[in-house]
C-alpha cells in the first residue's frame, strides 16, 4: 500500500486536457513574452553564519534603487505553518521526518501564497533560503535525498541561486559570536552531543558537505563568503546582471500550472 503507485485515471485529473493546455499556454505567454519584465526568483543559500542575510539586504536595497519591484521570503516564515513548527521545536518534539515534512509544508504554503503570486505579477522575489536548505539539513539528519527532494515537487527552480560558501570553523565562529546555537540549529537531535557548540560544529560540517554536493548538482553560483562584505556585494551585482537575461525555465511549468489551476478553482 505505502509504495503503491496508482495508475493514471482520467477521472481524477484536476481539469480537462484542453483547460490544462490553455493554462500552459498562458504560463508561457506570461513568462516568455520579451515585451514584459518577467518575474524573477533569486535564492540566497548557505549555512548559518555565511552572511547571506546581510547580502540579501544589500542586494534588495540595490535592486529597489534600480527600479525593481522586490519582495522577500524567508525560510520557515509562513504565517500558517511557522507557529506549528516553533511550538514543537521549543519542546524538542520533532523527529527528523516530522522536521522535514513540516518545513516542506511551510515552503509549499509560501510558494502558493506568496512566491508564485509575486512572480505571476512580474515581481522579483528574493528567497533568504530556499528548498535547498531543507535538502541539506534533512540529508544531514540522515534522510534520503530522493525522498526529501520529492516532497518539494512540483519543483520551482530559482532563476539564480547564490551559494555563500564558508568553512565549518567560520560558520561556528560567526554564530558563536552572537548566540549559542539552539537545539535543532546545533543538530543535537541527531548528534546526541550535549554541548551545543560542539554539536553545532559536527552538524554544520555535515550540512556544508551536503550544500557542496547540491551546489554541483544544481549549478549554484558560489560566492566566497570569507571575502569582505563589499566585495561580495559587487560580485553579486555583476552576476545578477548576467543571470537575469537567462531564458525562463520550462522546469517550472508544472508548479505554476498547478498553482494557476488551484487559484482558478477557488470556490
Amino acid at each position, binding site marked *: *500500500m*505505502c509504495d*503503491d503507485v496508482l495508475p493514471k485515471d482520467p477521472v481524477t485529473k484536476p481539469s480537462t486536457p484542453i483547460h490544462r493546455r490553455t493554462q500552459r499556454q498562458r504560463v508561457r505567454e506570461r513568462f516568455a513574452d520579451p515585451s514584459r519584465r518577467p518575474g524573477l526568483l533569486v535564492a540566497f543559500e548557505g549555512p548559518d553564519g555565511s552572511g547571506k542575510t546581510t547580502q540579501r539586504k544589500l542586494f534588495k536595497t540595490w535592486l529597489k534603487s534600480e527600479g525593481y519591484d522586490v519582495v522577500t521570503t524567508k525560510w520557515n516564515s509562513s504565517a500558517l*505553518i511557522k507557529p506549528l513548527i516553533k511550538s514543537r521545536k521549543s519542546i524538542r518534539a520533532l523527529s527528523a521526518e516530522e522536521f522535514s515534512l513540516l518545513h516542506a509544508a511551510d515552503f509549499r504554503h509560501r510558494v502558493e501564497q506568496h512566491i508564485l503570486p509575486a512572480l505571476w505579477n512580474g515581481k522579483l522575489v528574493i528567497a533568504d533560503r530556499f528548498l535547498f536548505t531543507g535538502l541539506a539539513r534533512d540529508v544531514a539528519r540522515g534522510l534520503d535525498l530522493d525522498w526529501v527532494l*520529492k516532497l518539494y515537487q512540483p519543483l520551482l527552480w530559482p532563476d539564480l541561486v547564490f551559494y555563500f560558501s564558508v568553512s565549518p570553523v567560520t560558520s561556528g565562529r560567526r554564530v558563536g559570536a552572537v548566540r549559542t546555537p539552539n537545539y535543532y540549529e546545533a543538530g543535537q537531535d541527531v548528534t546526541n552531543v550535549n554541548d551545543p557548540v560542539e554539536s553545532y560544529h559536527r552538524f554544520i560540517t555535515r550540512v556544508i558537505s551536503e550544500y557542496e554536493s547540491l551546489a554541483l548538482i544544481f549549478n549554484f553560483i558560489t560566492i566566497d563568503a570569507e571575502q569582505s562584505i563589499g566585495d561580495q556585494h559587487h560580485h553579486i551585482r555583476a552576476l545578477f546582471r548576467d543571470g537575469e537575461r537567462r531564458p525562463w525555465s520550462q522546469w517550472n511549468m508544472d508548479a505554476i500550472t498547478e498553482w494557476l489551476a488551484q487559484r*482558478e*478553482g477557488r*470556490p
Partner: protein
Amino acid sequence: MLISVDGVSGTAVAAAARVALAGVARSHRGGVSTWDASGLFQDLIVAEEEAGIPSARTLLLLYAADLAFRLRWEIRPALEAGRVVVAAPYVDSAIALGRAAGLQSGWLANLFLFAPRPAESQYVDQPPARSAGSDAGLLEFVIDRMAYMPPALSREQLIDRMQGRLSMLARRAGRARPIGV
C-alpha cells in the same frame, strides 16, 4: 500487528476501528491510533484567516507529519510490544484525497514511504457528515478546510472520487474487508 481502517466518514472509521480492536484478545490489544495525535490540525483551526488557507498538497504534508508522530509514539511502540494496533485512518484515506484533488500518485506514494504496510486493511463504505464537527474525520476536516477545489469540481464530486478511490484500493488489497457500518 497493524490494522488500518480507512474511509471518508470519520464517525464510521472510528466505529470500525473500535470493532476491529474488540475482536482482538484483550491481552494483545495495543489501542487505536487516530489522526491528529500530534495536534497539528487542532493548531490549524486557531490560525488567523490572514495566514492563508492551505492547499490539498500542504494539508497532506501536514497529515504525513502527523502520521510520522503517530508511528513514533503510538504505533511502533505497540507493535514492538507485540500488540495489535488499529490505525484509523492510515495512509489510504490520504492517498484517496490526494488523487481526488488531482495530485500525482507518484508524489503521494513517496510521501508515505516511511509508513509500514499494515497486516490487514479495512475500508469503510459510508458517506461523510454534511459538515465537519468536533469529531470530524480527516477527510471531512480537509474538505472543509482546503483552499482550492479542483476546477469545476463540487464538494460532492470530490467525495465521490475519494470513495471511488477507496473502493479501488479495497479491491486491490488482498485481505481487505469492506465494511458498511
